């Protein structure tokens, strides 16, 4: 049964009113007010549409033509769920936390307090157990006024992942947060994550978005990351979703003095993906590296929006986004670097490169620099092209078949982003996934994207790519 956009909006508004008590059970006054304000904003603005500049090439109306169910309570999951989502990468020791249909599902509903001081668990639990910390950071970085969906999330979000690293704590294990959808019906999810890194702390975080069935879903995620002075965050997003799913990932990073962020989004599959990355360089000496790789085909759509705010002097940022689009796939890149008046000696770099394999694939790329300081070094570039015919001839003249020459060039193109992954075992694993994807062998995993059984064969490329 199809409903119109208006009905979805109305049903969301009534969902909010009906469940008002459940929604903000542990909210303090400010956060409760934030919800009301955000709902009002959503009521006024509605969903983003193609008349808005930043949504011109990403039409979300098709996604909203469906009816979705919403859950106001955690699902009753069976005891095997922990086993089901276990992700193992050889040589990659992770601490894994999972959200199922937007709800934290790792055993205890309470937060886990680790010996080194790290605290990990559900955002709902954090609201109850650590109200002061939540009050200090929640809703402080994300601006719900960027669009109706961010407002909707702010009004309706109930759960997600909470991570806190106190000052001077280094998380030795990589943290992996997995969001999985497994529902009997088409579901709409408002997921909210809050990650706080104290001074001099260090975290490697892998954020996976996976489908494990073929149902439609619409995940609207807002994540806030606070990086204290000299904190270091290595963040990876892995996206492998079915073609019927829609994923909106809005991430806000706030960087204090000398904080260092590296975030790398690898989009392997997904019907509709939009990643919005907002990085505010709020303290001098901060650095943000923002990378992305997208390999899309069929009718898939990918949109990467990046906004880097150089608010203070002496910060650096670099962006590198690369994409390969085949069939009828479409892509958007919108990169905006703002250098404020006082942000002298800013060094900012931005690049987006695309390869279109078919003549039906399209990409819209828009690099944008907005500079108010006078002593800055900024550069940007964007390319859209086909595979290099000279290089194809060169490879084939050595006996490499058309198909393999093509694959080799696509792989080499993608490798520039993959090679930026600093954890070797993770890099190798993603490398494998990229190869499989390019060979058309990557299915929507029936389990998490990083899952690999010991019996699973490494993707053979006839070439030992690890030596590249």
């Amino acid at each position, binding site marked *: 049964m199809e409903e119109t956009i208006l009905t979805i909006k109305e049903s969301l508004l009534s969902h909010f009113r009906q469940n008002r008590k459940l929604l903000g059970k542990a909210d303090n006054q400010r956060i409760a007010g934030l919800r009301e304000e955000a709902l009002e904003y959503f009521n006024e603005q509605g969903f983003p549409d193609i008349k808005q500049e930043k949504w011109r090439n990403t039409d979300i109306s098709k996604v909203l033509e469906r009816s979705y169910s919403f859950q106001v309570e955690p699902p009753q999951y069976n005891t095997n769920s922990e086993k089901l989502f276990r992700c193992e990468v050889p040589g990659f020791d992770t601490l894994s936390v999972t959200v199922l249909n937007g709800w934290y599902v790792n055993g205890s509903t309470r937060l886990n307090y680790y010996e080194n001081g790290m605290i990990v668990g559900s955002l709902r639990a954090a609201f109850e157990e650590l109200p002061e910390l939540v009050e200090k950071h929640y809703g402080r970085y994300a601006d719900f006024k960027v669009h109706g969906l961010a407002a909707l999330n702010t009004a309706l979000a109930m759960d997600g992942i909470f991570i806190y690293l106190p000052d001077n704590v280094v998380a030795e294990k990589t943290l992996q947060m997995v969001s999985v959808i497994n529902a009997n019906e088409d579901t709409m999810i408002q997921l909210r994550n809050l990650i706080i890194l104290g001074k001099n702390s260090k975290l490697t975080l892998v954020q996976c978005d996976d489908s494990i069935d073929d149902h439609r879903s619409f995940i609207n995620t807002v994540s806030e990351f606070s990086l204290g002075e000299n904190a270091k965050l290595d963040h990876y997003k892995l996206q492998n979703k079915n073609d019927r799913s829609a994923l909106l990932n809005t991430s806000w990073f706030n960087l204090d003095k000398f904080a260092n962020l590296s975030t790398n989004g690898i989009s392997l599959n997904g019907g509709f993906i939009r990643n919005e990355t907002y990085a505010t360089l709020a303290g001098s000496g901060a650095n943000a590296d923002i990378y992305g790789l997208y390999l899309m085909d069929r009718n898939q759509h990918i949109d990467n929006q990046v906004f880097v705010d150089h608010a203070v002097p002496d910060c650096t940022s670099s962006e590198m986004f690369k994409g390969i689009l085949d069939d009828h796939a479409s892509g958007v890149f919108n990169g905006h670097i703002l250098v404020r008046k006082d942000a002298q000696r800013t060094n900012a770099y931005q690049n987006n490169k695309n390869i279109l394999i078919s003549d039906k694939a399209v990409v819209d790329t828009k690099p944008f620099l907005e500079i108010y300081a006078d002593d800055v070094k900024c550069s940007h570039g964007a390319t859209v092209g086909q595979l290099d015919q000279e290089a194809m001839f060169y490879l*084939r003249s*050595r006996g490499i078949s058309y198909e393999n020459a093509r694959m*080799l060039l696509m792989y*080499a193109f993608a490798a520039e982003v993959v090679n930026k992954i600093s954890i070797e075992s993770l890099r190798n694993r993603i490398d494998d996934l990229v190869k499989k994807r390019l060979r058309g062998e990557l299915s929507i995993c029936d389990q998490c994207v990083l899952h690999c059984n010991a019996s699973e064969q490494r993707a053979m490329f006839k070439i030992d790519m690890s030596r590249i």
Partner: protein
Amino acid sequence: MLTIRNLRVSINNKEILKGVNLEVKAGEVHAIMGPNGTGKSTLASVIAGRDIFEITEGEVTFNGKDLSDLSVDERAAEGIFLGFQYPVEIPGVSITNFMRTAVNEQRKYKGLDPMPASEFLAKMEEKKKMLDIHAKLANRSVNEGFSGGEKKKNEIFQMAMLEPKLAILDETDSGLDIDALKIVANGVNMLRRPDNAFLVITHYQRLLDYIVPDIVHVLYDGRIVRSGGKELALELEEKGYEWIKSEVEK
């Protein structure tokens, strides 16, 4: 080995080769000389299978097979190698993997299993040593950031790895200093065998001091206007291409 009969080739309706005849036998080294823009590189590209050219007449056979039936990579697997005048840079692909892919794909074409990794690496080492190529070259991306000399040495290295029956070297000497030229020529001389052949395309006689050809052809305005022994190259050097022009136009 290679037989070219009355080959006519055009690009964008402009005729470049206007009836070329050539016969290369196993064990021979042929040199093709001629002024710029007379079709030397076109001839090399057409034999290798570049599809931007249109063959309007004539045929090219290689060991009895009509090359027009074979794709670029099939020709390579049959034993044709083209050393490029301007080798292409391929960022992200290492020479090691490039060569391993090429070697194994050629083996697959011949119905052979892939070469074991240890054997392959040993072969790489052997050829590098033979050609005086340093290890770091082989682990870099194909031709990326290479100097002109390094690129040409890399072409000879690839030739040594692939062991073709017919190697066509398209102006491999251009842009080389005398030391690099010697390394390239030395490589070719070491690879000469009774069962393979070379087609060396060059503008200058200089290279032929080091690679001594059996037969020299002069390509002028899309035709081979003169063929002879190695003395022809010396005569050309002495009298210049103007001499050929006036001879032809007589």
